[in-house]
């Protein structure tokens, strides 16, 4: 009976991935394929990662908390903590969205390259999964304890995002320009 489970799983996964392919196609038929504009957006997206991560330092800055603790009343402190917690959670969600977008672009662009390396692709996947787990952990931690105790985990998230930036840069260097240009052309026979 134990031998039956992997085979049944195999059959079920084929059906699921077949359905996913159909869903992907219906999305792609409305959305544009990778174009030169998307490429510019990738550049802007990387810039925004830099800008946002710089802003984060302020959200998690202990100096602000120390200042409020010394100068503010209890209500002000509570309000300050609530606001910082909201901002921190919002930032984590934005970072997750940004990295997911980067990953999506990376994969689309990877299909245009002459030689995607299985090793680096595997490494990237592992790192992406780690990032998802870590960032979800950060969200839970922020929600439970507030932003100031979450600094260590945030430091890891920043490092992971930094890794994605460098991987993405390497990917861009390997793009086949002819293939990327052709993606903008309308579909024809």
């Amino acid at each position, binding site marked *: 009976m134990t031998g039956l489970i992997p085979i049944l799983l195999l059959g079920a996964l084929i059906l699921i991935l077949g359905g996913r392919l159909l869903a992907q196609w219906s999305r792609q038929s409305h959305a544009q394929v990778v174009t030169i504009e998307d490429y510019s957006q990738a*550049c802007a997206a990387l810039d925004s990662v830099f800008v946002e991560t710089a802003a984060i330092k302020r959200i998690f800055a202990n100096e602000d908390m120390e200042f409020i603790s010394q100068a503010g009343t209890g209500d002000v402190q509570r309000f300050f903590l609530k606001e910082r917690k909201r901002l921190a959670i919002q930032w984590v969600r934005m970072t997750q969205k940004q990295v997911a977008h980067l990953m999506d672009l990376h994969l689309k662009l990877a299909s245009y390259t002459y030689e995607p390396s299985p090793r680096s692709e595997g490494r990237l996947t592992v790192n992406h999964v780690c990032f998802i787990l870590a960032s979800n952990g950060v969200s839970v931690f922020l929600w439970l304890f507030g932003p100031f105790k979450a600094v260590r985990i945030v430091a890891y998230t920043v490092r992971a995002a930094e890794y994605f930036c460098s991987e993405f840069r390497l990917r861009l260097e390997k793009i086949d320009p002819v293939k990327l240009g052709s993606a903008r052309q309308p579909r024809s026979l």
Partner: protein
Amino acid sequence: MSTNLIWWSSVALETVVLFRGLRAELLKKYLLFYAYVGCVFLIEVLRFCSYTFTPNFYPAFYWHSELITIVASYAVIFEIFGQALRHNPGVARLAQKLLLVVFVIALSYAASDLLHGGFTSVPRATADLGRYLRYVEGALLLVMLWLFGRYRISFGRNLLGLTVGYSLLVGLDVMNLALLSFPGNEFSIGLRKSLPITYLITLSIWCASLWSCQPDPVQSAESAIDRDYEHLAAKTRANFAHLPARVGRKLRP
């Protein structure tokens, strides 16, 4: 009566798929796929003749012809692979390596299971071989579907219908054959009965999606856009080269 109806319906749909393939000039484009459909059609007709004129020979003929059908269906795997990745040589190379690994693992698993099962009779051994070949095919298809999804490979309507229909057929057949190999499983009987209907659904999907030739995403010659792209790529490369260091310097606590 209902069995005959399904039988004739599937033969009729196979005829329509082949006819439309010829009329819509898809036969040349998807030659391996149409060769598979033609092979299945021929086997269906031979099975019908065997069932009518030599019923005693039918069970043995069924399992032998089933094995041929499964072997022939590997042509569809090659067709999907070749058509889907013809504009993505990098992903095709990656897929080749991955498929080879999966093929070796799945084949080793199937061979060891087949040898452990022992040899009872020729029809039984043929049925087992067919089952394991289907498992291997399922594993290959799974890897291909995963790669298509992962790298967001663009599909034309024809190829999409071909792939989705084939996935439905193989996915359910793999589950059915697995359950069939465990005697006394009541769910297997239900699934076995529903399988011909699944095949009819698959043929209907193929019939609808391959009714006429639909445009595919194609590669075009270099244009002004490419030159713009190269400018932009050079610009962004220079930009990205310093970005990680800048990010790291600013953000490390």
